[in-house]
């Protein structure tokens, strides 16, 4: 394959946010007809780099050259005009609009000043066909499954017919078949001379498709090298910056205690036939692809999206988890995977965030300190959690993800539930904070509490869990021990192991 002219060059890009240096003098380039993969852990700065390229953030320092010419983007529209198309990790579809309208958002074809709906529909169908997707172009985006929405996002990027295509974890929500199809498409685009920046956590994909790899860590570029010089284990080592073994806390020798939670035949619109038990002192990992029902399972255990079928026993007694409050009252805690929308009270102080759960159950008319924790205690707790902030009266919104997560974890520790459900506990968190969170989870378990950890991050699931349940299509596809490794878990997750019959997620497509 011939790598011709450099399509994109970013030089010494630096970007800071209050309290965080997200990028520090990062340089990066990509040629026409090249797939340049960026690897790095969450929080390594990949997404920030892409947002700078897309004109969403303006860099504090550094320059961008497109086709050798300097460019500065103050608005996404300018990046698009420069021929850059980005598939963002965060979905940005309009739920009330049709697929075709979403695909052509900002690029609507017109004829004589009027929207050419026919062209939009046809174009949308063509693009979806190219992606091999059966999605109807006039369906409302809000009615689609997450994976389907991801497909629409990709179609949206393709519609721009860009010379530079940036894909931020495009296969995260796709099953194997669709992921394979996407990789074929990437290869085709490459042969058409498109410069492709490809961000992914999936090592096999990178090995299969990338021409060069850039490793990022803690906002810096670690290394750029051709894929031939980068075997997967080296990539991982560079990403993590140390051996995986000392990254995860040691597992205890003691066997787990009594059964805390027992679910039999649990099901709802997204789940079916869930049989599951969690014991005191153990960490149960739940893995699965996006849309496999692992997030739904966590929410069902907590009572946010309750089971409609089956029985749940907690601490030996039957319990009706119809509402989060019921779950909390029984002694279950829940850390959402969406810290911003479901976790933080962004404008409130660290103390107020920490005390939220305690306050939800305190007497309302007593002083805000009564029945909760004194400010001093809250502060002590945050110091113990090693929350780093200017002061604890500061609004939580200004903190980095890791520190936010520690405060929210503290919110639950302040109530000390018997069972804690973690959803993607380290999403968007830097490495140091990750290790700290893992240790905290282990500490919780060591105190005789049960921990359920739902995560899309396979190494994390394997590194932290005592045993692993793998979800596939709304059911538990199987249970395995961490020793089976990533391949073993993945095999279950994609349904390669003889899966229990062919089940549709009931109601999901109704």
């Amino acid at each position, binding site marked *: 394959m011939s790598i011709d002219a450099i399509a994109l060059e970013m030089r010494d890009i630096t970007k800071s946010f209050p309290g965080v240096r997200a990028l520090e003098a990062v340089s990066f380039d990509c040629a026409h007809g090249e797939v340049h993969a960026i690897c790095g852990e969450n929080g390594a700065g990949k997404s920030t780099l892409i947002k700078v390229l897309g004109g969403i953030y303006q860099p504090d320092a550094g320059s961008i050259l497109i086709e050798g010419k300097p460019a500065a983007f103050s608005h996404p529209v300018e990046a698009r005009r420069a021929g850059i198309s980005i598939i963002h990790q*965060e979905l940005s579809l*309009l739920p009330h*609009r049709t697929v075709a309208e979403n695909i052509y*958002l900002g690029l609507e074809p017109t004829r004589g000043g009027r*929207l050419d*709906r026919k062209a939009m529909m046809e174009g949308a169908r063509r693009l979806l066909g190219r992606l091999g997707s059966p999605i109807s172009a006039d369906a409302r985006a809000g009615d689609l499954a997450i994976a389907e929405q991801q497909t629409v996002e990709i179609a949206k990027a393709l519609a721009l017919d860009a010379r530079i295509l940036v894909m931020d974890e495009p296969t995260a929500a796709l099953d194997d078949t669709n992921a394979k199809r996407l990789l074929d498409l990437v290869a085709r685009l490459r042969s058409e001379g498109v410069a492709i920046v490809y961000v992914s956590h999936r090592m096999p994909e990178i090995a299969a498709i990338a021409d060069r790899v850039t490793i990022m860590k803690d906002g810096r570029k670690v290394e750029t090298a051709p894929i031939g010089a980068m075997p997967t284990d080296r990539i991982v080592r560079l990403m993590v910056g140390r051996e995986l073994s000392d990254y995860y806390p040691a597992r205890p020798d003691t066997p787990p205690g009594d059964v805390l939670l027992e679910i039999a035949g649990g099901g709802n*619109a997204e789940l079916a036939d869930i049989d599951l038990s969690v014991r005191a002192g153990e960490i149960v990992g739940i893995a699965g692809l996006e849309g496999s029902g692992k997030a739904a399972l966590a929410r069902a255990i907590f009572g946010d999206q309750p089971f409609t079928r089956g029985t749940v026993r907690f601490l030996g007694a039957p319990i009706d988890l119809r509402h989060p409050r019921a779950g909390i009252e029984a002694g279950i805690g829940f850390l959402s995977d969406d810290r911003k929308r479901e976790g933080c009270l962004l404008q409130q102080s660290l103390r107020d965030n920490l005390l939220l759960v305690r306050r939800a159950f305190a007497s309302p008319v007593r002083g805000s300190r009564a029945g909760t924790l004194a400010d001093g205690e809250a502060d002590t707790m945050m110091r113990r959690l090693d929350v780093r902030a200017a002061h604890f009266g500061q609004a939580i919104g200004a903190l980095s993800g890791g520190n936010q997560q520690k405060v929210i974890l503290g919110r639950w520790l302040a109530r000390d539930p018997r069972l804690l459900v973690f959803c993607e506990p380290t999403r968007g968190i830097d490495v140091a904070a990750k290790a700290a969170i893992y240790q905290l989870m282990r500490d919780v378990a060591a105190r005789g509490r049960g921990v359920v950890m739902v995560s899309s991050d396979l190494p994390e699931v394997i590194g932290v869990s005592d045993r692993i349940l793998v979800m596939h299509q709304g059911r538990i596809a199987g249970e395995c021990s961490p020793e089976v490794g990533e391949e073993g878990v993945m095999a279950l997750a994609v349904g390669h192991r003889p899966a229990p019959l062919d089940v549709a997620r009931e*109601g999901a497509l*109704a």
Partner: protein
Amino acid sequence: MTLADTLPASRRTRRSLPVPLLLFLASAVLYVGAALYTGQLNQLGASGLVGLAQRMVGLGIVALGQTFVILAGSIDLSVANLISVSAVLASFVMQGDPAMIAPAVLLVLVVSAAVGFVNGGVVAKLGVNPLIATLGVGLILQGLLSASFNNFAGSVPEAFQGLAYGTIGIIPWSVLALLALAIIGALLLRSTRFGAHLYATGGNMDGARLAGIRTDRITILAHVICSLMAGLTGLYLASRLRSGAPWVGRDGVYDLESIAVVVIGGTLLSGGRGGVWGTLAGVLLFATLDAVFNMLGVPAFPKQVMRGAIVILAVAAYAIRNKGPVA
């Protein structure tokens, strides 16, 4: 906002209710029922129905404009004041002189557009909450206007009164104008890039920005359209009332009523979904209520109570299906 917020847990496909049609049917049933009940069969004849349509014009035009800003995720509380401004401006500039019609109309439209531009700019560029921004601009307008004029100012020439009183056959011009504006509005929303971008701005501001849409400009343009519609309402009122007074907009409660009919018409208060036909159906419901209350001879005070309850229930009828947090 992400899709996750708007998607119910159990992603049941919920088709949106055909709000415009339901409102239209409800209005028709109410109106015909009241006419039959009171034996005022004349109200079912052409002149009765034309009268009903005529009741829609003033609120209808301004509500069309309000639809645009609400779709964009903003809101406009200054329309009532702007209506007064444009009505007064029109009749003051015209002073009964037919030659001044064109300059007066032009001036009104320019001033309206400028007010819309300021509204949109304060919202989009200064980041002021649209309720406060437009409330403030409305207060400023009202103050300047009332300081300058304290009664009906000037008058409109006979020719200009044709706007409100002229007819084609038996159908008044103004009703046709409302219909035409609604069709233009619907076309704008459905068949132009601006329309698509407006829905995107109101539905998912960040997503729209990522798609390369200049959401600031869209917001400002929506406000300009809304203000122009308020300006047109002012012109219509000046024509219908023969003159403009600094209180015509406020007395008409066009600010709150236009918001109410837009929301009753199925447009989301947070933006991104809805359209002009729903709004027009909401206006029809309000006009029908006026007519029906008159036919039934409902006293003024119970009428107020019922209207308040109807506003709440009409919105509740479909809002109750909404699962997201409401404040």
